[in-house]
């Protein structure tokens, strides 16, 4: 089945041209909802003497495989001068920034997009069938789009020198690692691990000259139990929240009684944003919002309907984007200006089915990503930015 039927003529089309676009081939499998049974012929008789029932393909067989959106062809500079036909989404159009309705061609489902300007980056160009289906691919399929499935690694920049901390070198690290992980009984498996380590380049006999297992273990314990404020390299900070409390008496502005809630762990939103957008997994992010339309191809005179499926095809994002483009640029900066769309959640949870351990995290997701990717836990799309401490009802100041 030709998935890229509509992509064969890869020109940027204007609205007028759309009316004259060649209709899709008159193949009943393309339009299952408009399936017309063919003319009835005289039924054949099978061996038993009954008429053979005309077999029709079921919906499952007729169902098309999911198709990625049609690609946008290479930007043609000649196109810039053509006036847009569709209106902008904002009421005020007196600035020079207009909505150039750059349309893609329709894909086999009749969906097409309209961009405000030529996008500098289109992550959907690299979508293949594997990205669009729910089931996990069979083992022999190796072409999995890495940009969609790689999880984000925020703390990926750790230098080699710091990686053995708190141990001085790789030898001690390896020995301590062998001692305190794995099984606590002697076994063949543990022996193999030890021998492999001893044979590797990470082990140097001279490093063990002053090695004392008690001292190293104590050092390790101290490291594990260090106070939380030492964790600055992760970007997590701990603060105290001060809230004002009414006690029924009149106070002047400076002497309102306050209540301190300690233990508010949080990290800088800006750092999380920077880390996420520079990570290789963010190639699946859309930087430019667009309008998505569906045109019923079986009735050529039908009006295209707007499709709202992602945050980056929503009016809110489009409005924010256009407003940003119309804002005067930063001094001396000619870089493309883009919206980083943040989606925040906060939810208090119990950590286990027993006991009272609980957390109240604040989560951050990015709307530039497709919801199909964002919703998959293995893509590590969720970022915890804060844990709110609970104010218990039995507190006393």
């Amino acid at each position: 089945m030709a998935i890229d039927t509509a992509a064969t003529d890869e020109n940027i089309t204007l609205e007028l041209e759309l009316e004259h676009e060649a209709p899709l081939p008159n193949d009943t499998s393309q339009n299952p909802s408009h399936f017309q049974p063919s003319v009835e012929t005289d039924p054949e008789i099978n061996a038993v003497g009954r008429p053979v029932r005309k077999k029709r393909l079921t919906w499952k067989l007729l169902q098309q495989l999911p198709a990625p959106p049609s690609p946008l062809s290479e930007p043609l500079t000649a196109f810039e001068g053509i006036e847009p036909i569709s209106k902008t989404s904002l009421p005020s159009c007196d600035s020079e920034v207009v909505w150039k309705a750059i349309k893609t061609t329709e894909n086999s489902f009749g969906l097409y997009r309209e961009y405000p300007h030529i996008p500098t980056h289109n992550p959907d160009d690299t979508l293949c069938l594997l990205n669009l289906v729910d089931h996990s691919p069979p083992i022999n399929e190796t072409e999995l789009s890495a940009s969609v499935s790689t999880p984000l690694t925020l703390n990926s920049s750790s230098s080699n020198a710091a990686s053995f901390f708190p141990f001085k070198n790789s030898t001690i690290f390896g020995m301590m690692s062998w001692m305190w992980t794995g099984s606590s009984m002697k076994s063949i498996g543990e022996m193999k691990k030890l021998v492999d380590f001893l044979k590797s380049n990470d082990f140097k006999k001279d490093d063990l000259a002053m090695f004392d297992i008690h001292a190293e273990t104590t050092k390790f314990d101290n490291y594990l139990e260090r106070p939380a404020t030492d964790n600055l390299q992760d970007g997590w900070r701990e603060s105290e929240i001060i809230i004002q409390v009414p006690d029924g008496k009149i106070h002047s502005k400076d002497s309102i009684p306050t209540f301190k809630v300690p233990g508010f762990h949080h990290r800088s939103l800006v750092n999380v944003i920077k880390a996420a957008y520079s990570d290789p997994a963010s190639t699946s992010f859309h930087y430019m919002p667009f309008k998505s339309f569906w045109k019923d191809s079986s009735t050529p005179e039908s009006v295209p309907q707007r499709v709202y499926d992602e945050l980056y095809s929503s009016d809110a994002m489009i409005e924010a984007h256009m407003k940003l483009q119309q804002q005067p640029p930063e001094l001396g900066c000619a870089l493309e200006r883009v919206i980083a769309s943040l989606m925040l959640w906060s939810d208090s949870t119990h950590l286990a089915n027993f006991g009272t351990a609980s957390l109240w995290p604040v989560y951050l997701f990015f709307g530039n990503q497709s919801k199909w990717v964002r919703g998959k836990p293995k893509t590590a799309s969720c970022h915890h930015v804060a844990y709110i401490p609970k104010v218990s009802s039995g507190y006393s100041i």
Partner: protein
Amino acid sequence: MELTGDGPPADVSTHCRRELMHAVWTILLDDDFLYAYEHGIIILCPDGVSRRFYPRIFTYSADHPEK
């Protein structure tokens, strides 16, 4: 409470929780974030192009425990 000797009444607790949420957001929306909101931050994207990103909050779903 040391001031009144009793535990806090229910509406004070609600008030405190509300204040807590507001205080949390005051801390999270720090100066760095407000600067980025106004002026954007330059980030080098994995396709090799640097872009100026302006954070905008589009959704916020919160569960606010009433008790």
